């Protein structure tokens, strides 16, 4: 189970870094946070899981969305 989650996380991380649309990257990043929260729960770390879900998936996503709204959404030089 942890392996599957980790594979998903790695794939999402690759997508985050390569997506042309920065907003998609942000969504993928918060999905990484949620998946790692599940991973932490499975690994018997409920405190860390709650923190990761609240802080990683919540607060940091809000700030990322704010940043992108205040600038541009596309990554100009894709690569």
């Amino acid at each position: 189970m942890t392996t599957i989650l980790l594979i998903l996380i790695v794939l999402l991380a690759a997508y985050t870094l390569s997506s042309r649309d920065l907003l998609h990257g942000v969504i993928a990043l918060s999905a990484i946070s949620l998946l790692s929260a599940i991973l932490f729960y499975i690994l018997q770390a409920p405190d860390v899981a709650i923190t990761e879900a609240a802080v990683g998936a919540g607060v940091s996503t809000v700030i990322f969305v704010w940043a992108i709204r205040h600038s541009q959404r596309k990554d100009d030089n894709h690569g």
Partner: protein
Amino acid sequence: MVERALLLCLLLLGFWGVVAKKNIIKKIFGLNILNAAAVMLFILEGNRIGTEAPILESDLALVVDPIPQALMLTAIVIGVCVTALALALAVHLYQITGSFDIDTIRERVKDAT
């Protein structure tokens, strides 16, 4: 073993994002991934010595190591704080230069001063 190899991949992926990506928002994505990989490593390995969460509801001797968990709480929060500040700086840079590309930013900042 496979898990740790995957984590190393994740960490290097994040480092690649920080080092090689031109877009500064992508660099911040990379930083986040880097941080997440380190946190996962601590939790994953701290889990090896037990099977129960470190909450002493019943008298179970086989709880996992609580120290890495407490440390990682701090590390996650610090990571997010740094991310927030980095994003504010990035938006400010965008407002000054109109670009997210690190090389373009460097050139335009040089021209501005």
